[in-house]
């Protein structure tokens, strides 16, 4: 999956619209509620902030290797990809459409710090509606794939939404967690977590760590074509989750909590996973890490 650097087009640096264009079949994307038809957030206008025509998320239908998919892409540059009322309603509407239309998958291009605090309860409700809609789509037999590799990562409510998806595809640059580093530092102090320590942030939330822990199924390069290949490779029909599966998952998570809860750093976690030289992990190429992961169970 490694391509020469000169041919790569960074997912991290791309806008949401560029990510969609690079992800799906060429010229297949048809936007639902395009900018000229959309309503910017009324809440932001009340606060004296300019909105975005698409309220920071682009939704529509497309083809992925000729299979119909529905796509939602968050724009991390607009208020940190945060979920407001209209933003959330667009994602919920797309997921409900998936239940009716039964596409091959819904692709959620997550790039978000979570709830848009400017919109308070409307944003919180939007997030919970997205969660329910993801599970409804999965229960209807439509896989929902989360793709995480933007500058805002997947945090807060969108971190939860990401983990509710059928599968997660990440790049090393992507981050996935509940409370963001600065939130943890603000609430619990710098002794608990130093959000300025970028290497630490990535060692506990970054794509490589999530892949080693089994939180993301597919690790890809920071490249539009690699995300496309990863989505195609990951996309498969999914049976609705059974009670036995959920109980096994719960047991696995309880064991993980007991094993790792006292550790402070990804380096310690990787050592306990049995990785011989954990300090080498941040420097490994994607393919090397995938090889290393074989034989590691978290």
């Amino acid at each position: 999956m490694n391509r020469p650097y000169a041919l790569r087009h960074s997912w991290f640096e791309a806008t949401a619209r560029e990510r969609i264009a690079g992800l799906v079949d060429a010229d297949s994307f048809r936007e639902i509620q395009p900018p000229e038809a959309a309503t910017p957030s009324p809440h932001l206008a009340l606060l004296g902030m300019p909105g975005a025509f698409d309220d920071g998320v682009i939704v529509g239908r497309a083809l992925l290797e000729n299979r119909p998919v529905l796509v939602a892409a968050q724009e991390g540059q607009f208020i940190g990809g945060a979920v407001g009322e209209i933003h959330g309603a667009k994602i919920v509407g797309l997921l409900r459409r998936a239940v009716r239309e039964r596409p091959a998958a819904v692709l959620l291009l997550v790039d978000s710090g979570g709830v848009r605090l400017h919109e308070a309860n409307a944003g919180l409700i939007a997030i919970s509606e997205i969660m329910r809609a993801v599970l409804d789509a999965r229960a209807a037999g439509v896989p929902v794939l989360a793709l995480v590799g933007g500058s805002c990562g997947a945090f807060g409510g969108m971190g939860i939404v990401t983990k509710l998806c059928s599968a997660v595809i990440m790049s090393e640059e992507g981050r996935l967690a509940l409370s963001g580093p600065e939130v943890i530092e603000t609430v619990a102090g710098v002794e608990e977590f130093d959000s300025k320590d970028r290497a630490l942030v990535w060692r506990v939330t970054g794509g490589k760590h999530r892949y080693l822990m089994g939180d993301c199924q597919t690790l890809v390069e920071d490249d539009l074509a690699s995300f496309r290949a990863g989505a195609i490779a990951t996309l498969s029909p999914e049976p609705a989750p059974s009670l036995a599966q959920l109980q096994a998952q719960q047991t696995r998570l309880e064991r993980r909590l007991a094993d790792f809860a006292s550790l402070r750093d990804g380096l310690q976690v990787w050592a306990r996973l049995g990785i011989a030289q954990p300090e080498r992990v941040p420097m490994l190429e994607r393919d090397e890490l995938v090889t290393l992961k074989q034989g590691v169970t978290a």
Partner: protein
Amino acid sequence: METLNFRLESAPAERAASASVLCGVVGSGNLEILLRQGDEPKVCTVEVKTAARGFGDTWQAVLDAFAATHAAGGTHIAINDMGATPAVVSLRLAQTLSDYQRGRR
């Protein structure tokens, strides 16, 4: 936030293939521009919503220069701005008009 409206004389734009085009993102120091067909062939109307208050004269100067150097008549431009500099605004305007005429969206 400040909302500014402008009406600029400009040579008629070449008719585009697409009905509208969007460029840019409402990110820090950036802006998004939505350009679509206007009502009068020799007039470009512009509506700016900007986070930075008190820059009406600067917007007027940048938009005057754009309308003078580009054939932008017969278009309506809507802008959401998050503090883009005049240079960024000029580049985005040119990019948007170019995309409009090439029929890309």
